């Protein structure tokens, strides 16, 4: 257990701290079991992973670490955002590329999609998201991302993971999507083409995912580009709720996830941008249609 390991490394900590760590660990185990319906260990045993001699896989994924992260995200998934899931049976076994719309200022949508695949998919899958390389240059953040199995977003890594039959999660809108202002909510921005070339090169089916509920968790009224440029950040959103007491937490919207049917694309992955754009347009339209349908069916934002 990672908590017990932390306790052990503080070699001279008094025994009471160690006992507290043990108690917290057991409580975490129980909470997770009630959320998952079975113990974490037996759930992870169903996930196809190749662990090395030290209990981490070649990319640094450590199931012990993921336990605590999964507990947090699973709690958010079920209790806070009360996520509704549709179509999770559409996800094929073997390698898959999940393509979703991005929203919400912070990537809670990614965490919830990953939690869904671990909690509700059968067989359970462990999602790998592609992280920015600057995240891997930060202390602790880089360690955290690595230990929960997220990898740096370079094509070689993506190809290797797909060859291992894993599930990759991509948000082709990128920062443009996550930092949308409220008036642009649920209108998908432009998609990058990289994921399509990757899918064609590796013969991976694409599962479009529509996320509804993310745009309302942090309401951004404007994006001040001048300040963003000054801070050398991609965006600088103005989020009024942050100034209210307790407003730093995301609003408890009800998240709804739709997993579409797998789409398969063939052809030359090195083709001209124009040819690839047509295929990407198909995926984008599919997701936009799924999002629109979800918005129409939705009666209330928060329940």
């Amino acid at each position, binding site marked *: 257990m990672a908590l017990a390991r932390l306790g052990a490394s503080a070699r001279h900590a008094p025994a009471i701290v160690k006992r507290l760590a043990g108690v917290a660990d057991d409580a975490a185990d129980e909470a997770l079991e009630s959320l998952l319906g079975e113990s974490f260990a037996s759930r992870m045993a169903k996930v196809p992973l190749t662990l*090395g001699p030290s209990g981490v896989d*070649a990319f640094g994924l450590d199931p012990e670490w993921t336990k605590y992260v999964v507990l947090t995200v699973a709690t958010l998934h079920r209790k806070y955002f009360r996520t509704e899931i549709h179509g999770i049976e559409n996800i094929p076994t073997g390698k898959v590329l999940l393509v979703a719309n991005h929203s919400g200022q912070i990537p809670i949508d990614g965490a919830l999609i990953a939690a869904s695949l671990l909690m509700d998919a059968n067989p359970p899958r462990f999602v790998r998201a592609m992280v920015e390389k600057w995240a891997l240059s930060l*202390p*602790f953040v*880089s360690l955290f991302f690595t230990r929960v199995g997220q990898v740096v977003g370079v094509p070689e890594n993506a190809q*290797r993971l797909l060859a291992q039959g894993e599930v990759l999660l991509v948000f082709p809108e990128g920062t443009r999507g996550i930092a949308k202002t409220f008036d642009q909510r649920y209108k998908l921005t432009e998609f990058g083409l990289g994921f399509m070339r990757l899918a064609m090169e590796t013969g991976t089916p694409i599962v479009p995912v529509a996320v509804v509920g993310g745009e309302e968790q942090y309401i951004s009224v404007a994006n001040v580009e001048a300040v963003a440029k000054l801070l050398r950040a991609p965006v600088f959103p103005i989020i009024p709720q942050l100034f209210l007491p307790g407003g730093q937490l995301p609003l408890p919207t009800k998240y709804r996830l739709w997993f579409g049917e797998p789409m398969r694309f063939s052809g030359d992955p090195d083709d001209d941008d124009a040819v690839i754009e047509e295929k990407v347009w198909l995926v984008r339209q599919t997701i936009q249609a799924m999002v629109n349908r979800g918005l129409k069916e939705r009666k209330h934002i928060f329940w």
Partner: protein
Amino acid sequence: MTDSGTFRSSPPRARMASVPVLSGTGGVLVTGICGRLGKQLARALHRDRHVVGVDRRPFHDMPKDITHAQVDIRRKKLKDVFRAGDIEAVVHLGVMHDPRASAAEHHSWNVAGFTKLLEYVSQFRIPKLVVLSSANVYGPQPSNPQFLTEEAPLLGGQNFSDIRDLVEVDMLAQSFFWKLPETETVILRPVHILGSVHNAPSNFLRLDPVVTVMGFDPMVQVVHQTDVVHAIELALRPGIRGIFNVAGPEPVPLSRYIKMLGRQKIGVPYSLARLVMRRMWSLRLTTFPAPELDHIRYVCMVDDSRARQVLGFAPKMSLEETVQSVDEGRW
């Protein structure tokens, strides 16, 4: 990059009577033979083949059937060694990694010395050349793929100028590979070599407590000294040419290696570590230059499938044996 070698074939007046044939049993010239890796290689080879050693240092406890020439490879005396004949293969271990030597000395040795060596290899038509490079030429950075293939760009010199010499040696060897197809050039890029050698990774793991950068615990590959010797032996066989990444047992997080050796670990914030390293370096209190901190922050691992498939290489030493070897025979 200085490309001072024009690899001309031997001028008419000095043409050799016969071109050596690559049989796999002829004489081997080993540069840098007096290092721990060199001595181990010499001992592995000398029973089956004639070994000629070249090193500035004297060779103590030398087996009787090895010829040793205490020569600086930049001097003309090296040519006499070649002229003495019977050399079928050259193994270049004599790449200077010692960061304490001045940059000029480094450059002179590695680039000028290696260029001279290549000239003789070309002139005397030596049919086999094995160059020991390093996976460090790829350079540790946060944007690295988890497993680098031999085609990955050599970016080691980006943040660490001292490694540019090593990158240049690797590139000179690559250039030689193409310019002189009659010579089978092999470039080996092993990951961190552990053993009785006194190199940076082995010395790092010998520290107690081991200093790490707080908040980072990258996956690291290591390889045992003996396995590297074995890889060189495989590379010497006729028909083998090209670049090969060489890795040992499966990768493991850095903290795990430290735990296996039973050492204490101290995490230091990066900015502080860099400051302290720079100061200690300028006072010559340490053999670790500050940019090497990147090796304990970011990943620099290799894909060794080409070595396994083409070279037939497989590490014989287990993870425990490889790691424990840094504590054996510390002298």
